[in-house]
């Protein structure tokens, strides 16, 4: 926290806007560049969460799947806090080699 943030908070003022501009831009550009609209991204997010939650119990409220962009390269970043492992993970029917691990 900077001195300014601190004073802003004391006075109940809005924080400086440059950081907000940067975040909003990065988000909108990630969408522009990947041609994924928020609706499609939301659908993908739901499906990813569904798959992951078969294996571990995740915090659905905190789970976050987003597009991030750096150096004109866009990445899909998922941050899924794990509450606990599923007591009994589903049988890895699709990949038998994993069963031995």
């Amino acid at each position, binding site marked *: *926290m*900077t001195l300014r943030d601190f004073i802003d908070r004391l006075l109940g003022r809005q924080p400086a806007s440059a950081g907000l*501009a940067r975040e909003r831009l990065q988000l909108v550009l990630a969408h522009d560049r990947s041609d994924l609209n928020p609706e499609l991204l939301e659908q993908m997010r739901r499906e990813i969460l569904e798959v992951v939650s078969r294996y571990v119990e995740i915090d659905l409220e905190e789970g976050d799947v987003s597009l991030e962009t750096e150096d004109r390269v866009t990445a899909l970043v998922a941050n899924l806090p794990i509450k606990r492992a599923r007591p009994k993970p589903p049988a890895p029917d699709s990949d038998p080699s994993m069963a031995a691990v």
Partner: protein
Amino acid sequence: MSGKPVTSTQSRAILICSGKGGVGKTTLTANLGIALAKQGARTAVLDADFGLRNLDLLLGLENRIVYTAQEVLSGSCRLEQALVKHKQEPNLSLLPAGNPRMLEWLTPEDMKKIAGLLTEQFDYVLIDCPAGIEDGFKNAAAACREALVVTTPEVSAVRDADRVIGLLQTREIEPIQLVLNRVRPRMMANQEMLSVSDVTDILALPLLGLVLEDEQVIVSTNRGEPLTLNGSRSPAAQAYTNVARRLRGEEVPLIDPSKEGQGLRAKLGRLMHTKIF
């Protein structure tokens, strides 16, 4: 002439574009054109904004137009007849935009033809691109090998610049360099404006120039005399001159906006952004 000679003997056709309107394309074209001419380079500026032409006005040449790119293309005049030579800076010539109705039939091939004629006679051909990413932009882009993208530290301008950069890259225009216009050091110090590194990180282009917000730009457009014409000491004049020098291969350091404000207010601004915990 000071500085290194132009390394390439090849003539350079450079697109000046931004996507968004009103960020300073035409002002950059006029000032850069004059600055290059003053540095000894034979320079032509081509107004490719046929719908809303203004380059003639910023250069103070609006009353001297007889023929335009339209007559050159239709063959009703020679290129030399249409070119308007700047009186004070004879190294600079303007090829004016034609009638807005040209937009109905103009093709990328036409623009290539005009640019081809100009590159035979000039070292630098600066093409002032219209705003937007439609036909006007596509026609102008077809005529260029390299590009300067102008943007300002505002979300809309940066977003539009990003779109344009993507389109230029698919056309294999190279190099694409960035000019960051209308920088307000005090707002940057207060973190109320995207910083220089925010913009360059997001757009991932080399920064060719950084132009501070400068009231003298408006004064100079009122007069029809670009700031670079009369050796103005104003910050924008120096910035445009430096863009020209860098374009010609000279190494000129970029200014640091945080050092621009040396007053108490700027110092206080920096103090306010010191991490306290």
